[in-house]
């Protein structure tokens, strides 16, 4: 069962609860029917009713266990990932660099962030050759200015 399924189950517990209730009711009814046809006093059914007790509660426990197991699994996965990253420093460095570059180039494309405006207005005039992009014109200025300076 995926983590999302568990989460969904825990959120849609009332439907689950009603279905389980129905199942238990049928089970008890069948026990009673059988007791009647065999001419018994229905003690089996009464016993079962007692054994079921609060089975709904029991199911909730199972669901909660599933959910917390899911969270434990998640924490375990994160710890494992961090350990692996610590072991492969080179790979981690390259991956982080790629992610950083990706974010750096992607950010100005869809946001007029304060950081960016600060960059375009303050840094650009002073450092015309810096790696800087305008929010409305996503071009890496390094190459343009570099060309014009060279040419």
């Amino acid at each position, binding site marked *: 069962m995926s983590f999302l399924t568990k989460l969904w189950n825990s959120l849609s517990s009332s439907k689950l609860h009603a279905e*389980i209730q129905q199942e*238990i009711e*049928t*089970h008890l009814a069948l026990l009673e029917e059988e007791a009647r046809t065999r001419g018994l006093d229905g003690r089996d059914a009464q016993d079962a009713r007692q*054994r079921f007790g609060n089975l709904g509660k029991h199911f909730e426990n199972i669901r909660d266990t599933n959910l917390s197991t899911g969270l434990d699994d998640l924490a375990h996965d994160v710890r494992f990932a961090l350990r692996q990253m610590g072991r492969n420093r080179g790979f981690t460095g390259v991956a982080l660099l790629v992610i950083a570059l990706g974010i750096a180039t992607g950010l100005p494309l869809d946001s007029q962030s304060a950081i960016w405006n600060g960059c375009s207005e303050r840094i650009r005039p002073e450092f015309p050759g810096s790696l800087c992009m305008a929010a409305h014109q996503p071009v890496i200025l390094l190459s343009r200015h570099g060309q014009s300076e060279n040419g």
Partner: protein
Amino acid sequence: MPKHQNDRLQGTLDMLILKVLAGSTPSHGYAIAQRIHGLTADRLRIEEGSLYPALHRMTNDKWLKSEWGVTETNRKARFYKITPLGLRELEEEQNRWRELGRAVAQVLKLA
């Protein structure tokens, strides 16, 4: 999620349920329990409190498929049937069980 192969008791209950369903038409929980009681001359009693959680867990794991229907006496019940994944699990669990049985028997012979 890891399978429950280390939990011998739970694994055994799963195996019994799967085995019953593998050889029958879709059945509700009560019928499954009755079948196991009948086959073992009541030596094995399936507790309802374990049966239904097991059925639900195995349905979540896609070993079983369930559908609402009505019993012979016209009561609404959920009918379970085994899936191909469940059949494979049954096969594996049977092998594990036989293995365990052989290993325990060897120890008992020595002791």
